[in-house]
């Protein structure tokens, strides 16, 4: 029984993951917008402050991270909204497979479409912010790991506000305070790398936050979705 149960769990996870990916890819503007937003925000900073490369490089870790954080925040609405509106989410909650597993699958798909691309884009934007190419890898790694944590934390907020009309600003209000520790250590990784200091302690803390969020968030998000649905 248990092996059969495990087998169906894996299948449900894979199915939800592939389904979400497929839906996202077909809605090009939905996953494209946060990425363009990311690039736009990064563009605003040199224009508003200074194009001086020596000054810009000191701000670059912060600018990249704040812009990525806002892009993730903007993308969160897509996580549950559509499935909530057309009733798919309700079916997921009713299914015999535990809801946290399906929620986790949705989060993974979301990371592939909204978190990972931010990390992949970061070298290009880093170039515009005068970051030396030696820190590109670390920047991308910190953003890949950090964006996963941001999505996990944000999913709780997205689940809580899924039933609220115009929940966007409310979501920002709830989630941004919780994002601050990730931001501190994420941007800290890049800054340490810029100064030529060993980044592993900060990366380890970032990883620890990811692990904690991974353990708690799918469960909390599923509970929040249940609350939203039971009225």
């Amino acid at each position, binding site marked *: 029984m248990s092996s059969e149960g495990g087998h169906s769990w894996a299948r449900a996870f894979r199915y939800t993951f592939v389904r979400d990916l497929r839906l996202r890819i077909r809605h090009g503007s939905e996953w494209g917008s946060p990425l363009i937003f990311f690039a736009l925000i990064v563009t605003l900073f040199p224009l508003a402050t200074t194009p001086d490369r020596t000054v810009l490089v000191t701000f670059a870790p912060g600018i990249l991270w704040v812009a990525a954080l806002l892009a993730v925040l903007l993308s969160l609405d897509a996580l549950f909204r559509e499935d909530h509106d057309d009733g798919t989410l309700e079916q997921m909650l009713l299914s015999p497979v535990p809801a946290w597993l399906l929620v986790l699958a949705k989060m993974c798909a979301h990371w592939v479409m909204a978190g990972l691309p931010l990390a992949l884009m970061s070298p290009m934007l880093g170039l515009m912010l005068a970051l030396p190419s030696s820190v590109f890898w670390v920047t991308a790694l910190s953003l890949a790991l950090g964006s996963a944590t941001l999505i996990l934390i944000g999913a*709780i*907020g997205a689940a*809580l*506000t899924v*039933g*609220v009309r115009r*929940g966007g600003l*409310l979501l920002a*209000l*709830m989630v*941004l*305070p*919780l994002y*601050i*520790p990730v931001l501190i250590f994420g941007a800290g990784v890049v800054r340490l790398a810029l100064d030529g200091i060993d980044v592993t302690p900060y990366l380890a803390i970032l990883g620890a936050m990811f692990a904690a969020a991974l353990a708690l968030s799918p469960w*909390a998000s599923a*509970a*929040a979705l249940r*609350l*939203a649905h039971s*009225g």
Partner: protein
Amino acid sequence: MWQWIHKWASPKHFYRVSTRVAPWLWGLALILLTVGALWGLAFAPADYQQHDSFRIIYVHVPSAMLAESCFALMAVCAVVFLVWKIKLADIVAKVAAPFGASMTFAALFSGAVWGIPTWGTWWVWDARLTSMLILLFLYFGIIALRYAFAREHSGGRAAAVLSLVGVVNLPIIKYSVEWWNTLHQTASFSLTKAPSMPESMWVPLLLMMLGAYALFGAVVLSRTRNEILRREHRARWVRALITDTCDKEH
């Protein structure tokens, strides 16, 4: 045991009992705060380094403690409400939130005022200060989330989940002065060792802290009673209560 809990969880019983308790709590808060404030502000000796500016401690420490305790209370209420679906817990969590937010603001504000004579600046991006600021934003988020729902019950449950998530901030605030090298000093009081201040300084502080907790209890209790009346205004016992009061007045 369960019967006892259920009796206490009933708004009606709670209202009856709290009618007797509330005035005592208000009186206790008034006495403790008056004595503590007079003693601390007028009679305690001035600090040899900070002179009179150290007296801000008598406002700063109690409000900061309340800010954290209030969040802890909300988290406990959240568990009770989510697990056992006791409505009274949701009412307490609801009325405690604005009080906690104002205490957090008071702590930040008094800290900023204190920062000028001691640190020479209103604000530094210190771990303790930043984590308190996050606490203030968490309070705002919880309050805003509660009122975003049309149905009171849904708003209460959403706010409960967010308060539980926000609890991670409490240990960060507590240990921020130990984990990082901060400008903010470490705890002035602890249960395990003698205070580092002379008696004439810490006794009024202790009074202020106890008074602050009494005030916290009194405010939450009174506001809970109001909220019970508001939510249960259709219940028979509330109507009877209102007609009784009206009869007495006329």
